């Protein structure tokens, strides 16, 4: 453990000011399920935590049928999977928010924290990518938005500039006849880091796949938006051939490392398997 200072802020502006004043060793504290662990283990130099859980905007979970869904950066998983609108319209967010950590961790862990921690294996990121999430960022120069697939720039690195924080993530309202799903592979059944994870969103026009997005995690320095996999599905009815082509595209896009959690060969293979499996669930959900 390091000796830490702690500040709780109640507006986005105060958070930006505190981050600027704190410099590179100040960190935003959302649920703390990553940052407190890192401070304890001394794996990052941190001397100040700025708690944003006093800001209403970062705690919201708000849906309307036209505008879509806005999830505050610090809204914990349990509020996300407890929300009736999210359950009805965004089951892929239920998939990931119910499997991050366990019940205790889900009481705190946020999608914003998951994204800002920017781990290649972050379990909410592929789902947010296929759901066309856009990250709303506030900073010394005002606000800007970045598509989730462009947010992470490397393991533990992202587009946030000094003094910036993530305020919320916005998802468009789901189109008719669409469905999305997220899955991960772990050697156990809980409390593990994804060896590979994947998400798919599909839209159908009759039997034809009219639109598709596929994303993979833990297979590259950042979560991947695999456009080639989506393209392999679009313009035809789902078939063993198109699914195999999408899986092959995922496998080709994956450039994983060998580490204690998985080997290159294993991860490449699982990229294909989990692409196929999420396509199947997404299609089932689209057909409702």
């Amino acid at each position, binding site marked *: 453990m390091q000796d830490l200072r702690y500040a709780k802020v109640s507006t986005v502006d105060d958070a930006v000011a505190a981050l600027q004043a704190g410099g590179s060793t100040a960190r935003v504290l959302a649920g703390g399920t990553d940052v407190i662990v890192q401070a304890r283990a001394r794996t990052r130099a941190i001397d100040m935590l700025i708690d944003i859980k006093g800001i209403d905007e970062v705690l919201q979970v708000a849906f309307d049928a036209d505008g879509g869904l806005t999830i505050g950066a610090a809204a914990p998983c349990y509020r996300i999977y407890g929300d009736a609108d999210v359950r009805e319209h965004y089951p892929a967010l239920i998939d990931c928010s119910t499997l991050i950590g366990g019940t205790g961790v889900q009481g705190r862990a946020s999608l914003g924290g998951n994204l800002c921690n920017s781990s290649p294996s972050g379990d909410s990121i592929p789902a947010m990518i296929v759901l066309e999430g856009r990250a709303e960022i506030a900073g010394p120069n005002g606000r800007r938005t970045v598509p989730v697939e462009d947010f992470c720039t490397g393991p533990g690195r992202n587009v946030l500039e000094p003094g910036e924080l993530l305020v919320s993530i916005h998802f468009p309202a789901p189109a008719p006849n669409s469905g999305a799903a997220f899955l991960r*592979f772990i050697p156990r059944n809980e409390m593990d880091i994804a060896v590979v994870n994947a998400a798919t969103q599909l839209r159908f026009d009759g039997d034809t796949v009219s639109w598709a997005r596929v994303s993979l995690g833990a297979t590259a320095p950042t979560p991947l938006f695999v456009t080639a996999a989506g393209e392999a599905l679009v313009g035809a009815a789902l078939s063993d051939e198109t699914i195999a082509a999408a899986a092959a595209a995922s496998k080709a896009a994956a450039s994983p490392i060998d580490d204690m959690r998985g080997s290159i060969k294993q991860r490449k293979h699982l990229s294909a398997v989990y692409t196929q499996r999420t396509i199947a669930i997404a299609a089932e959900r689209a057909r409702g």
Partner: protein
Amino acid sequence: MVTTEKPKYKVVGTRPIRPDGVEKVNGRAEYGADVSLPGLLPGAVLRSPHAHARILSIDTSKAEAMAGVRAVVTSADFPPREGDGPQARDNVLAHDKVLYVGHAVAAVAAVDLHTAEDAVELIEVQYEVLPHVMDVRDAMLDGAPILDATLRTGEPDGSKGDSATNVAQHIHYEKGDLAAGFAEADIVIEREYETTMAHQGYIEPQNGTALWGPDDQIRIWTSTQGLFAVRDTVAGMLGLPVKSVKVEPVEIGGGFGGKIPTYLPPVAALLSRKSGKPVKLTMSRKEVLEATGPTSGTYMRVKMGAKKDGTLTAMEAWLAFEAGGYPGSPVGAATMCVFAPYACANQVIDGYDVLVNKPQTAAYRAPGAPASEYAAECLIDEIAEALDRDPLELRLQNSVKEGDSRADGFTYGPVGHVECLQEAQESPHYQSELSGENRGRGVASGFWFNIGFETSMAAQIQSDGTVPLVMGAVDIGGSRASAAMQFAETLGIASEDIKPHIVDTDSVGFTFLTGGSRTAFANGWAAYECAMDMRRQMEERAATIWDCDRESVRYDDDGVIRGPAAAAGAPQEFTFKELAAELPNTGGGIVGRADVSKTTHGPAFATHIVDVEVDAETGKVEVLRYTAIQDVGTAIHPSYVEGQMQGGAAQGIGMALNEEYIWDDKGRMVNSSLLDYRMPTALDLPMLDTIIVEVPNPGHPYGVRGVGEVPIIPPAPALHAAIYNAIGERMRTLPMSPRRILERTLPDDE
């Protein structure tokens, strides 16, 4: 004394609420890290970043000068060394060399933990990094990096080798004529097996608090399996007489053998002497995994011959076990266990204790047996397949029975392997059909010795007839309950009237470790003898009250003391409680006592059945159904017996499927967290069904054998067989993780 009909017990075999249950459930029970004392200083330990290095110098001056630091110690703070070779204390604070990453080098006590951790980073150690060796096969080669230049191999005949080596001990057992046995065989199969280092994974990290008084009296609080072992170790390392050290009992959050060695208490004591304050050291999970004693990784070769009729004619094993930085792997037990369930006439077994630059290994639930018996049981399964025999049938045909002996010379009394196999055959699980793609069933057996040794107990009677029962064995698995129950059974009273207490090392006679599946057995003997001592004294007291001949008074098993008139039909009797109430006015209290050291422990056998489904696309194994069958002698408290069987099976499944130490090329463990050291969670296991077999141990008043260890042995070979039956692959390296299975089944070009 072996009876198939069970004796009628009133307390033994029932399921009372455990005496320590409420405190543990409501969080009030005091564990090692809960100890709080006036002026207590926290501390932190500096650990080696190198797998093998010579320590050239340690400069603690900057740490000592830091504000808030109260003491810094290194191995130089121990008393002067005697002799050349390594000593036990070198694993507590490294002397001239560090032998594994995580090896303790120095320690700091400070006003708070942040300061202590910051100060640790200011200690400057100069190392000369040496080549390291991690695999037993490499360590046994000529020219391997040598960990201890003074080490010479101890040979089976007691002689010593004459050159520098990493092989600390070579063990050899044989019986019969191996060559003749193989010549007689119709089939001979030889296989290689490997297991990886695995940790006990107890919940509570190691801790140690010490208060070194100005009178050189030291008090220690620590979570340990042996209060007396800590006392003797601390006194020995500090060069003090035993009377200077008192070890206080605290609750223990699991041990499984890993809390037998002493790591932190001597260091806390040195810091306390320097600072004049009590000092508490606690380990992080990373320290627990990197710097305490897991069980050995191994490399093993096993060869067996069998006749077409199923008779095993020859068995040969070659076992090399990782010791860690100092001698002491469990290969000795592994060699005795490897073929223990089978009555094969011709056997040769060789075992090697090999130093490698990994954490010093410690006992882990049936130390050594889960590896060596895994190798043997997997091969038995292959033999059964080759002979087209049911694997339980083949085991039954070759099983040891009373009168058979092992290669190490031990001859069995009544044992229950045959009974376990028969129960397995008749079990609903084995009788059920298993169908479906990628599904398979496997079975395997296990053997463990169990042990006896010293246990002391004392009890007094309170005027209301309740009995505080004082003992020295730490309660890990429900031993307060089982001691109280056996004591109550002997006195013919209710177990709820017994108040078991575990007390410090000055307040009870010497008691050996809680380990070796001995505690219910040895506590039971002590409780029985202590209660019998009380019965005799109560008979005497009743004789005084009734003014009759002592020999004419009888304490009966129903808890009633009857005088001579009662024998003639007149009312002359006391219940236990009635006589208890009389004691203060008729001569004072009664104290019962017992000191036992028994060698009549009974071996344990188990047979497990498992069904799995393998996800062929991911290599992940799902355990569908599990049944553990075990001869326990007598189940004193069946719920805790079932809990031990389930707990052992869960740990065995963990070692079989996912748990492993993973190292980088510098000899650093890369998965030292519970996120990446993958023990099974509740979601990874089905209900673990149990079938208790009771073949009473004639060497125990209630037939107890010992329960805790044997159930960890069968899971890995049973899973090996089940996975083979599911997907046709024989996985001969543990763990059989998704990665290993997938890499085996994927085509090379994928």
